[in-house]
């Protein structure tokens, strides 16, 4: 078991024939994931990397039974691509594109309303169920199948923590990157709910940071349920200067009023074991599982 994607997931790629699309499709297929279609308007009927290419998502779904999509479309068209995937009824849509305009994402959020689709991203490293399915841009070298669920807002920090987990023999059930943008698809709460119901996930690691409200919402959710599994947290940016934007976009003054300390305090109150720093996550997980 895992959450959202596993060996039965059939992936199509929007923007499959571009440079990045080609690179990530090739890597995911080599990893053993099932990629069944590419979508590129005007290139339908051809093949790319041995995978059939279609004009539209709808056509690709009808012909191949695809259930998930990887969106690697340049930012100006990324929102339309996500909406096309939502309208075609795909279960999981992963957008790795960076710098998608915010008002476009507002449109995508409204298109998601009332549908069953789960959007991951944009500006996300994607989702990985080790040994079964990779949809995204993350390295897989250090990933290992196992029982730790990871949800994170940042790619390279996740790679770091994932490598540390694997080195300590803590394999992963699924790793989800919810993305670094203010408006995004699934959040920490959506990941927590699914990890709760996944019998093979024994503990969950939340990798948060300053800005946005993801950590607060996770804390509210965890206080409202009997979660039944240890949740380990990290909030990066404790020493970042206030009011300045540090790489990720989720730090507007009107939303980012809460400091890292306040986020940590709220997570602790909700029973989350908060690691001291990035290198302390594994020992915190080990302690929780003892």
């Amino acid at each position: 078991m895992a959450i959202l994607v596993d060996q039965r997931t059939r992936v199509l790629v929007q923007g499959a024939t571009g440079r990045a699309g080609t690179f990530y499709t090739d890597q995911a297929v080599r990893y053993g994931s099932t990629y069944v279609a590419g979508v590129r308007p005007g290139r339908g009927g051809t093949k790319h990397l041995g995978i059939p290419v279609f004009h539209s998502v709808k056509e690709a779904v009808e012909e191949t039974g695809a259930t998930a999509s990887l969106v690697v479309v340049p930012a100006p068209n990324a929102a339309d691509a996500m909406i096309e995937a939502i309208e075609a009824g795909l279960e999981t849509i992963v957008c790795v594109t960076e710098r998608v305009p915010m008002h476009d994402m507002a449109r995508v959020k409204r298109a998601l309303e009332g549908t069953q689709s789960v959007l991951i991203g944009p500006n996300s490293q994607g989702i990985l169920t080790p040994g079964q399915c990779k949809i995204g841009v993350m390295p897989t070298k250090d990933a290992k199948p196992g029982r730790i669920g990871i949800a994170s807002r940042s790619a390279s920090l996740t790679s770091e923590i994932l490598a540390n987990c694997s080195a300590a023999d803590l394999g992963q059930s699924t790793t989800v990157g919810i993305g670094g943008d203010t408006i995004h698809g699934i959040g920490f709460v959506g990941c927590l709910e699914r990890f709760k119901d996944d019998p093979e996930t024994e503990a969950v690691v939340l990798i948060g940071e300053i800005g946005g409200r993801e950590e607060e919402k996770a804390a509210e959710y965890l206080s409202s349920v009997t979660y039944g599994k240890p949740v380990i947290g990290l909030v990066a940016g404790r020493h970042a200067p206030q009011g300045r934007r540090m790489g990720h976009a989720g730090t507007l003054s009107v939303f980012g009023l809460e400091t890292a300390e306040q986020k940590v305090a709220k997570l602790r109150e909700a029973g989350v074991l908060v690691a001291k720093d990035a290198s302390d996550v594994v020992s915190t997980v080990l302690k929780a599982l003892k």
Partner: protein
Amino acid sequence: MLLSEYKSKELLSQYGVGVPSGRIARSPEEAEASCGAIETRKFVVKAQIAAGGRGLAGGIRFAATPSSVGEEARRLLGSKLVTEQTGPAGETVGAVYVEAALDLKAQYFVALALDPETGFPMLLASAQGGVEFEQRARMDSDVVRTLLLPDDDQDTRKALADFLAGIGIDDDAALDPIFYLRSAFLDNEMTLLEVNPFAVTRDGKWMAIDAKIALDANAAFRHPEFESLAADSGLSQTESEAQKSNINFVRLNGNIGVVVNGAGLGLATNDMVVDAGGRPANFMDIRTTATSFDIARGIDILLAEPEVTAILLNVHGGGMTVCDTVAEGVAFAYSRAKRKPPVVARLAGQNAPWGHQILKDRQVPVEAFGTMREAVARVVELAQGGKR
């Protein structure tokens, strides 16, 4: 992309939002002369910088006569304002905005942003408008209330009227200005529109006394006008230079140059450096699209800062940013640098051994470590004058 106050007001007034009459001035003489075009009994001279908090930093001055407007302008122009949002170096005042100082009956805070949950425009409002709003809001998040404004229709108007009454605005004349703000927000793809104070004058007019607008730089491709509207990207010169090289860079106060790929790992690395007693000179996030030449330019920036006495290289090689690319960039920058502060390298993930090999072969003064914690401890020691 931040708009200066006067550009923000120009834009809002095009949508029908009331703003005090004013003129931009770049010299004391110009400031004094501009008073003739402003019909008022009292003036206010406001420093134009692309950061908030200027009221508390002395960037807003009242003046009764044109000659004292000139004096206040002389004092402000060319001076440096350090506010909570400018960073330690502050920002130099290049222009002032001379405006009619109005007699205000009540002041509120209003802002528009997109609701991250629903994607609808969201109004944030508070009865406690004015210069100290941010401090108050930070201490007590209940100071601000929110309302979604999905449409411009009767239902939304009704909801807005009720909402405004809840914060003490019991006046239908306030509704239209808020819908004008909403149109300006949507048409111009703003990420944030803040009017503080949103105020009512003694004669009952609702006005934007100050306004701050952030445009979405990611939408600039379909808004050619953004470039002329934006005062500035909100970045310092070094920071925008780094941006061009696909590197997010923020200058901080310390002496340890920090080179990291990814924003989250960058934040986490700086946390560990500070916890270990070190002072980062910067925050850096090498974006996945950066080439080794881009990275070399990022390192150049650090090597050009005389305060930087040691560099920490913390890279987790991933899908596209691989360790050898970063190492190549570092080696290239060092090969042409006059000053070569010691480097502490912790490389992991994709192509890590290859990256270490490049640094060694190209004679970068490097010490390699296997874990973040060891590398951080060592760089802090070096920066404090520890033995090479």
